[in-house]
């Protein structure tokens, strides 16, 4: 038996060994395939499903306007909800089998972690369109890996700064975060930033209920007993909804100031279950009711179309995916120009990405040498209005990205500890437009 097996093996192996084709350059392709990984199942589909709808909408629009020098974009979606190894093999399938040249991956930091080295090996442009972990681009220099949004450091330091501007004189703080990488890492940054900016802060409780916890009663009871001045949570999705709803029902929102840097994505679902005065934010600076862009026709049209298609207002993952797509077409445009009108190779597009400045649904975004984008942060407080069944964000404050992002070449854990308290008073941090509702 062994002999026959070995013989067949050798024969077939010999027959199939061949060299890989080199990346073609010059000829204009029929279409540009862009892979987009997103959650269409699992808890994170609260982000993934709207983002997918937005991507479809945007691509449709873009193609209708002639595409990229006549080349249409074809999105290829991959479900991150498949989980670890299935996700990775799907990622590789669309790159190696379907000839996708650009991957937008992904929502989960864990998935970003997994695919970044693979993308580098496969020489495919990998745009981390939503995940926040700053570690990937700080730990290693990648040639093909970029992020077109702010990272966790930008977001958390901005949130800490904003908290200190709104409520400068608190003493105690507690955290309730989901027990997984984002929950742990984001708190680590937030705490270190806060302790650097305001060293007399006392952390009275660090609670990490499991991801997808159905009930936060015990955590809430414990917080009621501790009575912290501030409660921060970077939770999102169903977990955040449940936590806020239960905290509100039991009066915890009245006794402690809540700080919820990701809550913009939950406001519409929460409806009237979130009280006024809660500090909320989004990852980035794109807010559908941003007064700065009240009269921006392009953004307004997009918001309307999105609402017509999905029945909901855009949330930050929507702007994230649009940013990534915009960055791709802008980088291609730059690379085509640099290549004298010829279709560029992957390396040329990657070069263009590295110095790209682009604008999607908010203010201009700049990509740094390490592949990380600089995007400002918007934070504000909740305010209910009669016109809408859910709370809006009022007193929007814009924190510029360069103030709160680790400089290129430095490591965030050390950098965050060097923050000085006068950062809070920086005159570059400004309230945006005029308050949303004037009554």
């Amino acid at each position, binding site marked *: 038996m062994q002999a026959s097996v070995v013989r067949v093996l050798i024969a077939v192996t010999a027959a199939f060994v061949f060299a890989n084709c080199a990346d073609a350059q010059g000829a204009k392709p029929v279409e540009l395939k862009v892979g987009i990984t997103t959650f269409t199942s*699992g808890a994170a589909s609260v982000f993934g499903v709207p983002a997918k709808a937005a991507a479809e909408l945007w691509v449709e629009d873009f193609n209708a306007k002639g595409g990229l020098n006549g080349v249409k974009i074809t999105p290829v979606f991959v479900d991150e909800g498949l989980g670890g190894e299935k996700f990775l093999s799907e990622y590789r399938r669309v790159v190696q089998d379907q000839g996708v040249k650009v991957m937008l991956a992904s929502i989960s930091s864990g998935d970003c972690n997994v695919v970044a080295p693979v993308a580098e090996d496969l020489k495919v442009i990998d745009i981390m369109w939503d995940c926040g972990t700053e570690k990937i681009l700080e730990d290693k220099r990648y040639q093909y890996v970029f992020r077109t949004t702010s990272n966790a450091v930008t977001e958390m330091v901005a949130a800490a700064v904003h908290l200190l501007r709104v409520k400068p004189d608190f003493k105690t703080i507690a955290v309730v975060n989901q027990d997984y990488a984002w929950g742990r890492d984001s708190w680590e940054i937030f705490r270190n930033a806060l302790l650097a900016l305001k060293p007399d802060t006392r952390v009275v409780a660090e609670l*990490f209920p499991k991801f997808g916890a*159905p009930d936060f009663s*015990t955590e809430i*009871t414990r917080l*009621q007993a501790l009575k912290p001045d501030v409660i921060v949570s970077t939770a999102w999705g169903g977990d955040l909804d449940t936590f806020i709803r239960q905290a509100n029902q*039991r009066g915890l929102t009245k006794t402690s100031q809540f700080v919820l840097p990701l809550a913009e994505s939950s406001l519409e679902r929460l409806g009237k279950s979130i009280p006024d005065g809660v500090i909320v934010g989004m990852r980035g600076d794109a807010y559908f009711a941003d007064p700065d862009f009240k009269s921006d026709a392009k953004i307004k049209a997009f918001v309307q179309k999105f609402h017509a298609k999905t029945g909901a207002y855009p949330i930050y993952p929507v702007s994230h995916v649009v940013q990534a797509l915009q960055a791709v077409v802008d980088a291609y445009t730059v690379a085509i120009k640099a290549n004298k009108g010829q279709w560029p190779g992957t390396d040329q597009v990657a070069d263009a990405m590295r110095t790209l400045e682009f604008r999607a649904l908010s203010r201009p975004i700049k990509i740094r040498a390490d592949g990380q984008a600089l995007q400002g942060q918007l934070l504000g407080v909740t305010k209910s209005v009669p016109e809408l069944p859910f709370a809006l964000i009022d007193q929007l404050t814009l924190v510029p990205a360069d103030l709160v992002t680790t400089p290129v070449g430095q490591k965030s854990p050390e950098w965050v500890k060097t923050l000085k308290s006068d950062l809070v008073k920086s005159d570059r941090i400004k309230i945006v437009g005029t308050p949303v509702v004037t009554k």
Partner: protein
Amino acid sequence: MNLDLLVLALADGLSYAGLLFLVALGLTLIFGVMGILNVAHGSLYAFGGYTAASLSGIAIQWDPSTVLLLACLPAAAIVVGVILGAALEIGLLRRVQRGDAVVPLLITFAAFMIFEDLQKLLWGTSPYSAPEVVTRLGTIDVAGGTFNCYQLLLIPGVALAAYVLLEFFLKRTNLGKQVTAVTHNREVATALGINAKRIGLVTFVLGAVLGALGGALAAPTTSLLPGVGTDTIVLSFAVVATAGLGQITGALIAALLIGLARSVAVYMAPELEVVVPYLIMVIVLLVRPNGLFAIAQARKI
């Protein structure tokens, strides 16, 4: 841990234990009577919850009274339990031979997989909830903490009522006595003219309604998401196994034990919170292989 904190921890544990007990009750009832461990029980919980949330969502448009809103919850549980329970029992479980406990286990596992996707098709992947009723029932202060009346009083109340009613049903009513007879000895019961098939259906539907009721009662305070059923089945099995399969009073005590231990763990050793139910189960089974309250049966040759 001082006394006040202990009181608070107990108050939290009570509500959690109440929900856990309702689900475990359905599971243990079905096992006791039919010898089937229903893996799809978690899906019934999920369907109960989603249906309750949808029903409340519809009801709320007419600005209903609190009682009507409350009534949505058991109504959803009954609808789900009767439809899905009967479908499972008649459609699948009757088709496999009895005696072998493993085949029904696999069948319900398959049903669980089907229900998971069905639930996503019906309700999508966004979180669902029905919080209005909790707000309406207000809050109550205990030992310096503010609690929802809904969680602190209503849920444990319903759980206790379900226990008392079930005990009454099994011991005092004619149908219930037949169920008990089938539990003790199926052959003898059949010989006495009891329609074991019908009893099986009744039990399964009743168990399914209890599972769905657990979900329906959770809907106002939690966010329902794909996957809620998965955790529920494992957790409620831990309760049932700790108590001893088929033990109703045992399940009540085990649910309390696990619910309270979990909330105490949140105060004392939060890292262990998720592990506590399973640790309790493993330890109990190591010491008492058939569960805390099970009566050992002799093997025959």
